């Protein structure tokens, strides 16, 4: 639901970096999206396609979305496990004393430019 807002932040950032580097155009953008980041990839792509037409340097930019698996760490037994499978509860020892290591991030990885 908030994909459009995230897209506009991403585009602002990419255009700023592109201008600083005297880029003619941005060919592609790689974005890492965590599995539990609340971003819906299909919706994000639609918002991106709509938004890029309104940019200076990203009109033809291709979007590569890389989905990162969500991993949770158990503070009690040291186990790391899949967050989407087991949530807050450690599958090894049953503890809820756990925290997310990766999976909630939305990272602008790199851009290919001319």
């Amino acid at each position, binding site marked *: 639901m908030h994909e459009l807002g995230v897209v506009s932040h991403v585009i*602002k950032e990419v255009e700023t970096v592109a201008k600083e580097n005297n880029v003619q155009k941005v060919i592609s953008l790689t974005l890492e999206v965590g599995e539990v980041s*609340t971003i819906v990839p299909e919706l994000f792509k639609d918002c991106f396609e709509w938004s890029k037409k309104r940019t200076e340097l990203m009109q033809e930019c291709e979007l590569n979305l890389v989905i990162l698996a969500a991993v949770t760490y158990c503070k009690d037994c040291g186990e790391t496990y899949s967050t989407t499978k087991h949530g807050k509860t450690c599958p090894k020892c049953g503890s809820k004393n756990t925290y997310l290591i990766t999976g909630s991030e939305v*990272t*602008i990885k790199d851009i290919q430019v001319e």
Partner: protein
Amino acid sequence: MGNNVRTILLEKSAFADNDAEADALREKLKKEGVFLVNVMSSPGAGKTSTLTSLINRLKSSYKVAVMEADIDSDVDARSIAKNTGVESIQLHTGGMCHLDAYMTETGLDAVDGKSFDVVFLENVGNLVCPAEFDTGACLDVVILSTSEGDDKPLKYPLIFEKCDLVVISKIDAVKFFTFDFDKCVENIRMRNPNATIIAISNRTGEGIDALTTYFTNMINKWKEN
């Protein structure tokens, strides 16, 4: 042609700029002695009613303003103005489902934020999107009504993880719904062991004293340092 293609590494969070803007705004508010509160909930959980109860208790001690964020209309801003008499403005998000730090700062400028002790920001009614964007507020509040169910902290983890205070509203209506209060507290605690939890009813006035005391302490602490 192909030779001109190069890669620029960014490795930067999509939220980094907003987070930096939010931190800068918080620092500015600290200097000006303004306590900005971000109030989040589902539509209909009682944000406007809770703010009305709270502001009517706080307004004799503090200069209070309210910023109402909605996709459209100004019913909330007019309701707050009519029922509390404090300064209130409506922000339209232009279709966006949340406010970010930039929009919040623009709103604060419009209301002349620095002339107030406390500014309440009533975020767009939604438990998903507002959690992702730091508004620059000094305190993040989630209101959860008994009619929504005790399982909401399980379904919307992020907003409960990020907040400082959870207000459980419509506590007078608890018997009409399948809402287990202890279970709800347990679910909140699982997401956020440090959040303060206060149960209230805007109809009967239950818990409003506790809520007022909590805010008075938080506002004074913010202004002291």
